[in-house]
């Protein structure tokens, strides 16, 4: 088994990355977004959409994704022959797991600008998210010369991680870190986070923790990295540290994932009253989100209802929808788990407390 902490240490020794401090990067991301408000050309609107998606990714803010989607819709409405507008909208569709609509938009980009390599890369990413790995790989291979070394390594790391080929994924990830020439900490933190998620799914929690900690060192405000690290810490027997990470996120974020994790950990610690409060909050929010962005939150909602949400039927419903949207190994596993949970006599794995009233 690879000792990842040593690998990262070696990376740093070979060529320490000189990156902008995470707090500065976040201030400047905010400044970029503020600076583009109301001044936008079509290209700048596309940039603003990308920046909002990036901030959504880093701060775990669903409202940023929603704003990006609104802008993208408006932009397409204003310029029906603008490839950049369709491209931007494809990205926002993909964020909300509306993959068929995203691919439709990319088809339009292909018709307007047949040689647009960025659109091909976007298509590859969507095919990957849908679990169409071979198509993703061949689409990506066709335009691989058009991307920088880091982007190529990061994309392939993600692809192999999704396929469960962890050693190959890690190799690409380390290649990416080795060849990174930028100073923004975001791409590096996102890559480290991606690797952490892969290890977490493989139940290699030590490696996952190393990766999440590395991502947080780059960008302390990186909410999903904090949330996943909390989850790992709790599973490694350090629930207090997990709670300390999750409380501020659960209070400030519009993503119910942090409240759900908090409810689970509190429940496992026997603090059922407080767990119920967070569970209720998460349940309400999942209901809201799955009403407006059904596909996007199908997987997390399924996990919630199969776990601390304690509603296996609802869990099965969303796990089924999730597999319709993306035929990935993880989606299949989730559905299998949901079917088990709904079998006669089954209890959900991490449920605490009674089922929530409807």
């Amino acid at each position, binding site marked *: 088994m690879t000792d990842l902490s040593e690998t990262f240490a070696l990376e740093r020794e070979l060529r320490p990355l000189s*990156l902008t401090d995470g707090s500065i990067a976040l201030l400047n991301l905010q400044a970029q977004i503020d600076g583009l408000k109301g001044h936008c050309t079509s290209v700048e609107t596309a940039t603003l959409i990308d920046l909002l998606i990036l901030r959504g990714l880093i701060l775990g803010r669903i409202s940023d994704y929603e704003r990006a989607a609104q802008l993208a819709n408006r932009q397409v409405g204003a310029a029906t022959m603008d490839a950049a507008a369709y491209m931007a909208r494809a990205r926002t569709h993909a964020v909300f797991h509306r993959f068929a609509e995203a691919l439709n938009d990319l088809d339009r980009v292909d018709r307007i600008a047949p040689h647009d390599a960025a659109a091909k890369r976007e298509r590859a990413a969507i095919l990957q998210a849908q679990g169409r790995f071979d198509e993703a790989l061949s689409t990506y291979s066709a335009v691989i010369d058009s991307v920088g070394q880091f982007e190529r390594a990061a994309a392939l790391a993600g692809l192999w991680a999704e396929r469960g080929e962890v050693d190959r994924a890690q190799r690409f990830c380390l290649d990416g870190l080795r060849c990174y020439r930028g100073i923004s900490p975001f791409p590096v933190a996102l890559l480290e986070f991606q690797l952490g998620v892969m290890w977490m799914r493989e139940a290699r929690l030590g490696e996952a923790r190393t990766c999440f900690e590395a991502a947080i060192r780059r960008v302390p405000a990186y909410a999903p990295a904090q949330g996943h690290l909390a989850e790992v810490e709790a599973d490694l027997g350090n629930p207090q540290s997990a709670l300390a990470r999750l409380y501020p996120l659960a209070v400030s974020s519009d993503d119910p994932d942090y409240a759900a994790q908090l409810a689970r950990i509190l429940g496992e610690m026997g603090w059922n009253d407080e767990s119920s409060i967070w569970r209720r909050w998460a349940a309400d929010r999942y209901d809201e989100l799955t009403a407006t962005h059904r596909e996007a939150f199908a997987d997390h909602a399924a996990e919630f209802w199969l776990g601390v949400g304690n509603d296996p039927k609802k869990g099965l419903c969303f796990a089924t929808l999730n597999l319709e949207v993306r035929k990935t190994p993880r989606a299949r596993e989730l559905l299998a788990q949901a079917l088990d949970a709904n079998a006669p006599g089954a209890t959900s794995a991490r449920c605490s407390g009674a089922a929530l009233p409807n």
Partner: protein
Amino acid sequence: MSDHFSGPRALTDPAADISDVFAFPAPDDAQQLVVVMDVFGKSGPSAVFSDAVIYRFRIKPVDIAATGPEASFAPSESEIVFDCVFDVPRDTGGAVRPVQHGRCLTPDGRTVSFRADDENGGVDDGVQVFAGQRSEPFFLDVRMIEKTAVTGKLSFKPKGSDTLYGTNILAIVIKFDWRKMLKGGPLFAVVCETLAAGKRPVRIERVGRPEIKNVSMSFKMFDQVNRDLEIRDLYNSEDAFDLKPDYFDTYRVRLNANLAFYDGLDGKVDWPFDGHGNHPLTKLLLADFLVVDASMPFAETSYFDVERSMREGRPHTTPGGRWLNEDIMDFVFTLYVNGGNGPPVNDGVDAPIAWSSKTFPYLAPRNPPKGAAA
């Protein structure tokens, strides 16, 4: 903001994205030379300098190597450098603008410390340094430039729309006694660079002349050799004073193609190609640094005057370099379209939201955020 968004890589690091460079004799003190680097165009109120970037001013004495149609410069081997670096800002305490401190390492090894946004800046024995957010001094109508490129017709309106109206940049201003600080001269070449800090700093971007990478180099469709190649990142990574022969032809061909396009916009050829098949301005523009005569008094409009005088075989009458308030787009378009043989080209935008002043730190104070202004 003539160089804003000048390459795909620069987009990821806005605080390292140089938008403009200026060099001029101080209007308020004839003994002093002023150099200015603007970064982070269209920056919102929270923008700060990166702690991972070295903001570098490179200054070389330069000689006129040739005049007439083959006019060229010969930069000296010697060079002086001002490097500015910044700390991570302290907790903002709820204020929109974080408090950031920086240091400028002078060519003689001194360190001038300053607090960002302090209008007096840091001062040490003849060197004054300001850094902070200011009003964008550049003004242009980007949409009409794009339309011109797409339609092949000059598309400027009598009253254009300033794409940068009311926006802000981060600026570093250094004012110094050039006779004390610089060797040689009085003609100096100025280039600004951003570099990733570290044991071996790596150049991220460099800017000398205005509108080389954007107006002059960005359009690919006229280039019959590298029609699908984005060359600006490559160009950024080069040493302005020592372009690699490997890629020189790539830049040369791109500039030849784009300059020929602009020349044809008025339906006549003002810049016939030379015997080597080059546009007469290509070689001069690829010497991509501002050339300023520090011994001459300040002038409001002086950009390219040294070069134009060289081409015409006469002494220059202004300091050259570039002053903050100059209408660069009108100048560049007039130069490229008719070389001064026709009526001036006016892009319909004649002023920024606020003019720069003639006292340190020169650039106008930052504009309020758009919402606040409304």
